[in-house]
């Protein structure tokens, strides 16, 4: 800070203005203390209720939240199998959803009105109906409407025929419903990203001879990613939880497995906690992942990459911040930043 350019005249040239001789009195913030105490009291009440309070059930005293039961079921086989199903559905739905979304977004921006119209129609339909209704439709409706699913020449001979009931299991119906629905939402997110990229980028890419496809893949989409990633992270976290809807069509996901156990043992609340803890754990993992992906795509957009949480921690603990007052006293004309 002291070697900043634009030094004012030295102190001896400005008599009676020696800043290092003065005492700095910081502004007091009494309300920060009051609100801080309120928060601490509320926190203490919450911890007490969660960990140390009891309730009487059938004449015996037991911990209110039955953490023993929670930890007993946290890593049992059915719960872990449910987690695998939940994660599988999340990955399938997001990968398929993003793929559908990119294709739909490009189609919507196509100059061919039939293509952009078809994409619009898709988004209109899948965004306009509840995902729960769509799940039921795929699980029950398809087998009801079409006993057999046939691949072949349109209006011509059939090549392969499947029975709907064997083709569309509960898991397939769940994956299909979530993917198609997610595709509609992702299409709008990707489209927003694409139109956020400056037209000059397309012109520059075309002026050096890149084809339309190359321009989209090499120039526009990588820059659109910066806009696309945050809402996509949001969608992924949302999807992880939305998969619990498939329990309604009898897919044995995390929520369904915990409900199965609860209906057997009547330990309803502890098993809701088991499910919640796992959902919280995976959304936390996703949040961290999203942070690093965002950081990666920030290259070129911000002059300096934002610090990782570890770098921020090191910065906070490091020696740079421990002596702000002497630094200020030496150079009071430098506006304190950061």
């Amino acid at each position, binding site marked *: 800070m002291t070697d900043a350019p634009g030094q004012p005249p030295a102190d001896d040239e400005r008599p009676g203005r020696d800043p290092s001789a003065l005492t700095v009195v910081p502004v007091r913030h009494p309300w920060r203390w009051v609100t801080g105490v309120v928060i601490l009291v509320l926190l203490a009440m919450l911890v007490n209720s969660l960990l140390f309070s009891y309730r009487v059930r059938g004449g015996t005293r037991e911990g209110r939240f039955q953490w023993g039961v929670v930890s007993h079921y946290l890593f049992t086989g059915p719960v872990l199998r449910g987690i695998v199903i939940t994660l599988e559905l999340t990955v399938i739905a997001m990968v398929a959803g993003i793929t559908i979304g990119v294709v739909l977004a490009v189609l919507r921006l196509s100059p061919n009105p039939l293509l952009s119209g078809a994409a619009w129609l898709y988004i209109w339909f899948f965004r306009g109906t509840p995902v729960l209704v769509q799940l039921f439709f795929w699980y029950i409706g398809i087998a009801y409407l079409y006993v057999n699913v046939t691949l072949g020449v349109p209006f011509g001979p059939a090549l392969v025929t499947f029975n709907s009931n064997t083709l569309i299991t509960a898991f397939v119906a769940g994956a299909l419903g979530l993917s198609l629905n997610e595709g509609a939402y992702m299409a709008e997110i990707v489209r927003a990203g694409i139109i956020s990229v*400056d037209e*000059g*980028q397309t*012109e*520059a*890419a*075309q*002026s*050096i*001879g*890149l*084809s*339309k496809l*190359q321009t989209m893949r*090499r*120039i526009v989409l*990588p*820059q659109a990613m910066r806009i696309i990633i945050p809402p996509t992270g949001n969608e992924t976290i949302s999807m992880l939880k939305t998969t619990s809807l498939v329990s309604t069509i009898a897919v044995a996901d995390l929520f369904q497995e915990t409900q199965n156990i609860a209906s057997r043992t009547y330990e309803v609340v502890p098993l809701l906690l088991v499910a919640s803890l796992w959902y919280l754990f995976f959304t936390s993992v996703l949040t961290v992942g999203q942070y690093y992906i965002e950081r990666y*795509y920030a*290259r*070129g*957009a*911000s*002059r300096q990459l934002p610090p990782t949480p570890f770098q921020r921690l090191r910065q906070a603990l490091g020696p740079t911040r421990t002596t702000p007052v002497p630094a200020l006293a030496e150079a009071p004309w430098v506006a304190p930043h950061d």
Partner: protein
Amino acid sequence: MTDVPPPSERPAATGRGSVPMIDARKVRKSYGRLEVLKGIDMLVGRGEVLCLIGPSGSGKSTFLRCINHLENIDGGELDVDGELVGYRQSGDKLYELKDREVCAKRAEIGMVFQRFNLFPHMSVLDNVVSGPVWVKKASSGSSKDRARDLLARVGLADKVDSYPNQLSGGQQQRVAIARALAMDPKLMLFDEPTSALDPELVGDVLDVMRDLAADGMTMIVVTHEMGFAREVGDTVVFMDGGVVVEQGDPSEVLTDPQHERTRSFLAKVL
């Protein structure tokens, strides 16, 4: 080189070498009901530096974009290096070019934009090799060597690994010139290359363009830098309202304009 003969006195083209780089005849272009180019005639010889001046909205940039196939023309005929822009002639029919053919044509023409338009997600070096590697399918190693040479030529050898937003406007524009040169263009188009720059950065960019002109590159420069036009330009063309008002040797057009509109424009910018 400095005298552009009027269309009636143009020599008949025989071989490639004698064909002018740009031959525009009554080029017209409209956006909806707004006619931006109202019949442009222009002839640019090989190695010639033509400076295009005129008020904003006069159609200068649009004409550049037409040359580079970024816009289709609505009338007249525009030849670049003896070949029609946007069409392929076979017998008495004009076939519209396919996307791939248009890309190949664009790859032979370098273009530098007012707003630089570097690719912000790529390093300076990757910006310069993007054309050779992706369009010409050149090897990455040799392209990078050549890109380093080009960046050294525009005075940015030490910025190879920087990202565009770490550079000043003048540096970005010089990278943009290197990026265009990496494609070995036969023609360079400059669309107000110094208009978005701080005044003290203009000189570096103009120096690079001056060197390029000295090396014999054919250049069309839309500019408001009258000093550059006078010093480097072989020809100055003054456009206004979608037509060419006056053209000729820079020393004549800029010092002794024949048309009233040229005079009033120059009085404002000089």
